[in-house]
């Protein structure tokens, strides 16, 4: 996680704190995103996709960031059908990112 580590000034404990926050915050965010998509709440979808994009960008997760950006664009255009299909991809990518972050956390325990 060199990008993230550099972002927190080389502080391993801070990096683990940030990873823990992301692992904690992201699943409920994605669940809400799914609900809002089903409810066709465009404004909420736009906001949540934007939040996910910003949050994931800290981990250099380019695929998640790009998909979230795409979802944001579809929501802004009001195309919720296209947004649904982007969301499916995004959901899978987020799961992959969370799994790899979990693995990283287990392999490199917090030493401060």
């Amino acid at each position, binding site marked *: 996680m060199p990008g993230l580590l550099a*972002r927190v*000034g080389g502080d391993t404990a801070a990096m683990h704190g940030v990873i823990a926050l992301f692992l904690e915050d992201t699943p409920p965010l994605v669940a809400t995103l799914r609900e809002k998509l089903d409810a066709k709440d465009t404004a909420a979808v736009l906001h949540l996709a934007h939040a996910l994009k*910003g*949050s994931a*960008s800290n981990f250099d997760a380019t695929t998640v960031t790009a998909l979230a950006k795409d979802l944001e664009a579809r929501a802004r255009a009001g195309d919720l059908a296209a947004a649904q299909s982007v969301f499916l991809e995004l959901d899978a990518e987020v799961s992959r990112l969370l799994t790899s972050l979990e693995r990283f956390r287990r392999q490199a325990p917090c030493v401060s």
Partner: protein
Amino acid sequence: MRVLIADDDAVTTRILSKIITSAGYAVTVVSSGAEALEALQAEDPPDIALLDWVMPEMDGPDVCKAVKARERPAPTYLILLTAKGGSTDVIAGLEAGADDYLVKPVNPGELRARLNAGARIVQLQQSLAAHVQQLQDALASVKTLTGLVPICGYCKSIRDDSDYWHRVEEYISDHTGAQFSHGICPSCMDALEKRGVWHS
């Protein structure tokens, strides 16, 4: 120096806090535009604020506009955070009243450099504001003499607003705080000598 971070993403605020605290600044975090505005309009606002562009209730540019609408002698230095980075966004942000902007995810070195640049401007403004205050205080204690002063063409007495006539020294002393030391000028001395009143 105190820095406010306004962003609704906990991951981003955690990272920003870490970088900013390590750079020696005191950090406060809020998660909405409305909370940011409240902190910025408080009696003792933060010196620098990092405002996310997209926030619940009120976005970053709107917060900038509201803050700039209220003039202060040493205003908070406002930095907008944007994930967009397009030049139109930058222009819109700066025109809304932001002093600077940063693109997310933030590069720590760039953040520190821009904070330090902001801190230099804040210090300069604070010291200028302090000087202006000192000058205003000084000015308030100085009496001035302005306007039309009615003066007698012969004895040079001055008439006040209540129609009383005063000697010119007395009038000037009362209105300016200046004091007089009396003497005789060379031409008056000559005239007095000619009249036999004065012998040098």
